[in-house]
């Protein structure tokens, strides 16, 4: 047998996944049809906070094709409470979270009734006939107002809108000194309040669930990132035996954290199908998705940075209010806490304090969205570093250089209590500056300012890092997360020498089938084409923690490597027997076992030969089981820390406020790269979402709590014309926390780019008296900032459609 010569790891392999996807041979959940399939539709509350006084479903029941209508009262006894797996403090306040409202609704979009009909059209028709009476209750929307004395309460029985306050203090933790002392002694203080607007993940495939209750195991197909967690949570939430439930995530069309959830609709579809004894499908409309699928971000960040006049940072104090929305979903409370470890970023702060209060409002629940806690932190610190540079009249990159961890200082214990294993900020920054043409752009900026050009040029810097590879189980335990952070894999050697890899990661666009095939091809010396990757079905892939938090490669693929190691160890025993050699004398290289030092012409056996011999099992060494198949569960010892330097040049039309990104350079260090094509694609997509936060996207609720950005005409997911051509490149320092040396790349672009863009916008107009523009930096907001010279032009442009004309003087999500 031949073996692969060129290593697969590092090759720009075209993706295996594409063949089906470009031909329309797809298995989205909504594509599924089963005999007797019924269709469910969900009636949702238009009220953000109200008591349900009456629901009349008689007319709906009489509609053509309708088989059943259920209200909260019908399902209250069996729906349980939707799970929250992250109680961040012992005294965290958490309301009961019904999948369908029973007596009270707490956000506009909450389910109040479900209709089941023969067709989706008939179900939608019958929704119109569901008649619900409400008594309005006071609506709580504003974060700061929600925690003020005498505020109306979202959940009066909790007695407060504050769910929990989580604090990290470097003096108390012993990782640094006292931040109040640093502030008192500061030569320079930068105090800012930044707002992280509310975002919507807006995956392209709307969520869909099909439940078939007719088999021995009840089977759920769902457009989810987390089939394994979903199965466990269904069992725990609904008290069904876990072994009687099978969950399948078929083709899943994007997630970005938005499908990291146990959804009300999954529970409801399950309950309805079980009750009717028939397969039931629910597929959301886009408006339903924007309205009721969890949102992301939404924080008010009060920040104080202390420094000396020479630019050395001496302390950082972070006080956050984080909007939970109306309920705590799967990891809602933990999302802002993930940021606690990242505000200090790549800088050597001696003193640091982070305090976050999680707040209930009558809005759609928030939860993970690409980056989850880390974009918020990175935005804050990278904006602050630019503000410090401006305050001191120093170049923004120079101010960073004075404070960042130098490459020879790794491993580095941070003030937030993490150990960064590797990195080289100098190298990434040098490369980015060169690709960007930094000095020439600065010269042009000066020239335009002097000339008083109506279009001003700004340069934004972001030297970010992030923590990936969620997560070491012991750390998650210390953070009160309910589960571990390991990942599982199995490698099966088939008799003909082909390989099946079973992974607990659950891809939804990332390209795991390709990347895992490359890794296994190298590990076992088999052709790339001979590897099949199985995932996303709890029956074939029985253990897993799924895909989020840039964890798949750093944790999931490491489990694959460990399983492959075990295959090789088992095969070595058999190979030694076949070669009539001692096991210690046998070595494995290029897919074949041979006797060490025996020369190229000596007899060798390929791993495929061994697989066949094991299948036959006629002549195995004593005590050797006739199987090479192996499993492994990998629990990382540390996070990984991708980093990079992103530079953005933005042109701001001072007469219209319009921002145009002229060039964008991203130099990322994501450690060793398995497939550069996939890495580049991840960076591109991440940049698009981070830039969208900076310039376009905001979920806006009006004063009654109605989402006014409930369609893709109002919630401005950027199109091809709204984004620039990116220049991407890499530097490489291997992670030392895993054998592959990989760091993860799924969230890097999103985390890095938002502050780079806003820094560029502010830099373009700072000489006009502007020191901040609230996100998204719509033309209206930028124009207003320039006109008034206000230091924190927030207010305007917070309406649906992102500041395309109408004026809302209150602004923002108030």
């Amino acid at each position, binding site marked *: 047998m031949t073996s692969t010569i060129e290593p697969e790891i590092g090759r720009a392999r075209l993706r295996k996944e594409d063949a089906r996807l470009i031909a329309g041979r797809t298995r989205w959940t909504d594509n599924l049809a089963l005999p007797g399939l019924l269709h469910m539709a969900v009636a949702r509350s238009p009220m953000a906070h109200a008591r349900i006084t009456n629901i009349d479903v008689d007319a709906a029941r009489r509609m053509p094709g309708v088989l059943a209508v259920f209200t909260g009262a019908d399902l209250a006894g069996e729906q349980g409470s939707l799970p929250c797996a992250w109680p961040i403090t012992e005294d965290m306040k958490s309301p009961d979270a019904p999948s369908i409202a029973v007596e009270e609704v707490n956000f506009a979009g909450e389910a109040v009734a479900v209709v089941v009909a023969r067709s989706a059209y008939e179900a939608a028709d019958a929704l119109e006939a569901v008649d619900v009476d409400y008594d309005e209750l006071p609506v709580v929307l504003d974060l700061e107002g929600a925690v003020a004395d005498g505020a109306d309460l979202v959940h009066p029985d909790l007695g407060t809108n504050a769910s929990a306050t989580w604090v990290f203090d470097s003096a108390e933790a012993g990782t640094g000194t006292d931040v109040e002392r640093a502030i008192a002694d500061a030569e320079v203080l930068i105090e800012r309040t930044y707002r992280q607007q509310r975002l919507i993940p807006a995956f392209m495939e709307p969520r869909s669930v099909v439940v078939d209750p007719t088999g021995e195991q009840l089977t759920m197909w769902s457009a989810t990132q987390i089939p394994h967690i979903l199965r466990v949570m269904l069992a725990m939430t609904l008290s069904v035996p876990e072994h009687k439930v099978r969950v399948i995530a078929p083709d899943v069309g994007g997630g970005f954290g938005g499908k990291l959830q146990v959804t009300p609709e999954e529970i409801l579809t399950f309950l309805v199908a079980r009750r009717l004894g028939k397969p039931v499908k629910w597929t959301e409309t886009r*408006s339903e998705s924007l309205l009721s699928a969890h949102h992301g971000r939404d924080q008010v960040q009060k920040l104080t940075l202390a420094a000396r006049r020479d630019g050395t940072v001496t302390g950082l104090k972070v006080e956050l209010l984080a909007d939970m929305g109306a309920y705590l979903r799967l990891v809602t409370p933990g999302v802002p806490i993930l940021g606690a470890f990242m505000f200090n970023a790549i800088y050597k702060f001696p003193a640091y304090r982070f305090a976050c209060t999680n707040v209930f409002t009558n809005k759609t629940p928030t939860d993970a969205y690409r980056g989850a806690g880390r974009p918020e932190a990175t935005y804050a610190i990278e904006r602050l570093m630019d503000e410090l540079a401006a305050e001191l009249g120093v170049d923004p990159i120079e101010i960073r250089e004075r404070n960042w961890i130098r490459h020879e200082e790794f491993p580095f214990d941070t003030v937030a209590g993490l150990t960064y294993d590797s990195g080289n900020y100098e190298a990434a920054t040098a490369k980015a500056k060169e690709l960007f043409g930094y000095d020439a752009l600065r010269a042009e900026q000066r020239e335009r300012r002097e000339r008083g050009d109506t279009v001003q040029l700004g340069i934004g810097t972001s030297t970010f890092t992030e923590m990936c590879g969620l997560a070491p189980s012991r750390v998650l335990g210390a953070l009160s997360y309910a589960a571990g952070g390991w990942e599982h894999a199995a490698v099966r050697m088939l008799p003909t020498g082909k390989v099946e890899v079973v992974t607990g990661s659950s891809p939804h666009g990332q390209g795991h089938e390709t990347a895992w095939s490359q890794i296994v091809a190298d590990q076992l010396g088999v052709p790339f084409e001979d590897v099949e990757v199985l995932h996303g079905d709890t029956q074939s892939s029985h253990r897993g923690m799924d895909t989020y938090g840039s964890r798949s490669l750093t944790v999931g693929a490491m489990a694959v490597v460990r399983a492959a190691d075990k295959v090789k160890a088992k095969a070595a025993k058999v190979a030694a027997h076949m070669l009539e050699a001692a096991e210690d004398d046998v070595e494995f290289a290029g897919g074949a076992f041979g006797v060490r030092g025996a020369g190229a012409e000596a007899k060798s056996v390929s791993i495929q030969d061994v697989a066949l011999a094991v299948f036959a099992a006629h002549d195995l060494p004593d005590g050797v089981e006739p199987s090479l198949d192996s499993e492994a569960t990998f629990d990382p010892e540390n996070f990984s820390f991708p980093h990079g330097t992103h530079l953005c040049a933005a042109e701001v039309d001072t007469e219209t406020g319009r921002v145009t990104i002229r060039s964008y350079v991203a130099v990322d260090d994501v450690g060793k790269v398995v497939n550069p094509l996939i890495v580049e694609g991840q960076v591109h997509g991440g940049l698009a979402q981070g830039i969208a936060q900076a310039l376009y996207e905001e979920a806006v609720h009006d004063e009654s709590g109605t989402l006014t950005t409930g369609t*893709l005409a109002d919630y401005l997911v950027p199109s091809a014309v709204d984004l620039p051509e990116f220049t991407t490149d890499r530097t490489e320092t291997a992670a030392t926390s895993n054998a592959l040396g990989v760091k993860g790349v799924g969230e890097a672009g999103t985390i890095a780019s938002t502050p780079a863009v806003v820094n560029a916008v502010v830099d373009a107009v700072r000489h006009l008296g502007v020191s901040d523009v609230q996100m998204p930096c719509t033309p209206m907001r930028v124009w207003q900032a320039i006109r008034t010279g206000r230091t924190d032009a927030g207010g305007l442009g917070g309406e649906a459609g992102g500041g395309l004309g109408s004026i809302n003087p209150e602004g923002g999500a108030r």
Partner: protein
Amino acid sequence: MRITVTVDGTTYTDEVEPRQLLVHYLRERLGKVGTVVGCDTSNCGACTVHLDGHSVKSCSVLAVQADGGEVTTIEGLARDGTLHPVQQAFHDNHALQCGFCTPGMIMQSIDLLADNPDPDERAVREGLEGNLCRCTGYQNIVRAVRDAAGHMRGGAGPEAEQVRETRNVVGGGN
């Protein structure tokens, strides 16, 4: 209402509700689930197909409007096992990740190239403005379309690339 539609080379005659959208007819009646629904306001373009040689958003066309017409979906592009050059270019340039927008994106790209066989970057971006992708940041999609343009020059491409000006279509492409 009774309609007769040719879809990917096969002619179907069906009774449909007057209100049924073309995309639902394709998916639910004909099993052409390669064409997908991504929104309900015709912003995303995931459902893009060709009707009589022009791209349409099939969520904005009634099935009855396709009566007597010829529809090409993503499933009908390959010829004798050979991918359409645009399909091939999407693969070659890593122009898809989750793949949900891909059918619509490919159908719209073919339409764009029929109108402008050699678009520059700007023209590609503008031509695809009605199709949203959340994964790729569009850069590799733009690359793929320009790459496909290179392969399709000289009029040697498959039939699906050719445009026939037969009639005006309600609910048009962009």
